[in-house]
């Protein structure tokens, strides 16, 4: 990842030396992801995620389109990720590097192909009108963990989003404004959460002489969870695992880089699962908080078309 940034020898040697002593520069332990800071905007479907210095904004929008001919019952869902040089000088405008292509494919697989958004629920009139949901992601600052942050932002945005209520009378379709009728949430089937792992070959040569504390250091490979940009430059390879809290792995990608033992990978999956459970809870809590803020005076109940029986 992130080739081209000039990093001095002193920096890289120091970071590796710190890793040998089981230390990370920001004081985290190896398997500790950064705190996720999630917030919602004023409009529906506007989510902001900060993961350390990484800062991502997602906005969900919906429009009515004609469905694809081969799938008349399904709505559309597209994810647009905009990684410009605003995020970091590492990214060029108007040109996608290999890393960016892999990144956008990963997000696509994690959210779209894992069917986290129920596309059939987006159908209004079969073969004529369906909702097309669009997620626009902007990366405002880059400090590693980009896929993780984007994934959380899109999922939180989808859960937060409301589309206008629709009533169908034969061929006639009418849309109700938000004041008229309570807007409807999307149907989200599960919440995939990504975790990125970075692998380091920690060279033992420098302190090969002190064999006193060898037992601790038998495994020369170090696995870092949620590495920041500096660590990513030095890493020998990374792997992204997407898991939801139902213990489903939605996507996994390790393209090249250091060879990693299969059991290490299984360990990583468990760590990713823990992070997914924690983050799912965080998203749900934040959504509840946001809902309480909007639902002043219990408007929901007033606008609801349902009878309480």
């Amino acid at each position, binding site marked *: 990842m992130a080739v081209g940034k000039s990093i001095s020898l*002193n*920096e890289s040697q120091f970071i590796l030396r710190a890793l040998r002593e089981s230390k990370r520069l920001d004081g985290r332990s190896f398997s500790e992801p950064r705190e996720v800071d999630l917030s919602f905007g004023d409009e529906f479907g506007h989510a902001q995620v900060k993961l350390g210095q990484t800062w991502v904004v997602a906005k969900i929008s919906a429009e009515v389109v004609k469905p694809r001919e081969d799938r008349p019952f399904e709505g559309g869902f597209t994810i647009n990720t905009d990684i410009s040089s605003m995020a970091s000088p590492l990214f060029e405008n108007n040109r996608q590097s290999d890393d960016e292509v892999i990144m956008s494919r990963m997000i696509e697989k994690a959210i779209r192909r894992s069917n986290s958004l129920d596309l059939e629920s987006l159908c209004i009139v079969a073969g004529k009108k369906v909702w097309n949901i669009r997620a626009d992601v902007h990366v405002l600052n880059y400090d590693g963990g980009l896929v993780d942050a984007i994934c959380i932002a899109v999922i939180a945005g989808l859960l937060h989003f409301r589309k206008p209520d629709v009533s169908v009378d034969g061929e006639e379709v009418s849309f109700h404004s938000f004041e008229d009728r309570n807007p409807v949430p999307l149907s989200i089937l599960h919440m995939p959460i990504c975790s990125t792992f970075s692998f380091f070959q920690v060279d033992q040569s420098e302190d090969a002489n002190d064999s006193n504390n060898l037992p601790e250091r038998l495994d020369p490979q170090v696995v870092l969870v949620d590495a920041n940009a500096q660590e990513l430059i030095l890493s020998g390879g990374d792997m992204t695992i997407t898991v939801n809290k139902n213990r489903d792995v939605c996507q996994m990608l390790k393209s090249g880089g250091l060879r990693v033992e299969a059991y290490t990978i299984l360990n990583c999956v468990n760590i990713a699962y823990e992070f997914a459970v924690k983050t799912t809870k965080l998203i749900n809590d934040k959504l509840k908080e946001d809902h309480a803020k909007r639902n002043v005076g219990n408007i929901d109940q007033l606008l609801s078309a349902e009878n309480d029986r």
Partner: protein
Amino acid sequence: MSHIVLPGDTVDRANLVENDSAPVILGPGMYQDLSNNQYPINAGLINTTKKRSNQLIYVDYNSKRYLPAVNDHVIGIVQGKHSEGFRVSLCEGSAPVQLGEFAFPNASKKNRPNLPNGALVYARVSAAERNIESEIECIDPTTGKDGGFGELKGGFVFDISLAYARKLLFKGGIILEFIGECAPFEIAIGVNGKIWIDAPDVRTIIAVKDCIQGSEHMAPEMVRAFVGETFKSK
């Protein structure tokens, strides 16, 4: 006495300068147009100092991109080698500067300095012309000795804002003294916003880095407690 000015503000010379008759030199952040109007072109604190019989007016402003100026002490990363010397980066994304191979003490055709790519050097800017590449040198021109310049080995380097780097270098922020009370360490400050530190162990280096980075916008009376806490938590 300094106060905040914004680009285009009018500067009341009488207020700033004690002796109105002394010639005035405009420093960084000040500009004089064709009709002899002087005004600030950067947002920051306006300052005056006396330099011999002249009055110097300049604006102390913060920025992130470093532009080379003669006699600045800087820290650079060696990016490549060519026939006449090294290409050194002073600031991420800016044009590299030249470090001639004879710009070292005792360097000769036979005794060439050898710096690997990625090495750090502490150097002085020796030439900064508008239209040609800037040059730096690892030599004190008055004595011909190293004068503290040269390759920085080991340790760790990190970036801070330019104004903070100047403050640490020229006003010798109290923070450095407080850190010194907690642990011995070595430091080199480049006005290009790079700071190099070294200490015997990793823990101290990380603590020193956190102290320096964390206290930029801190009130002086809080700094001491902050340093103590940072060291304790490591």
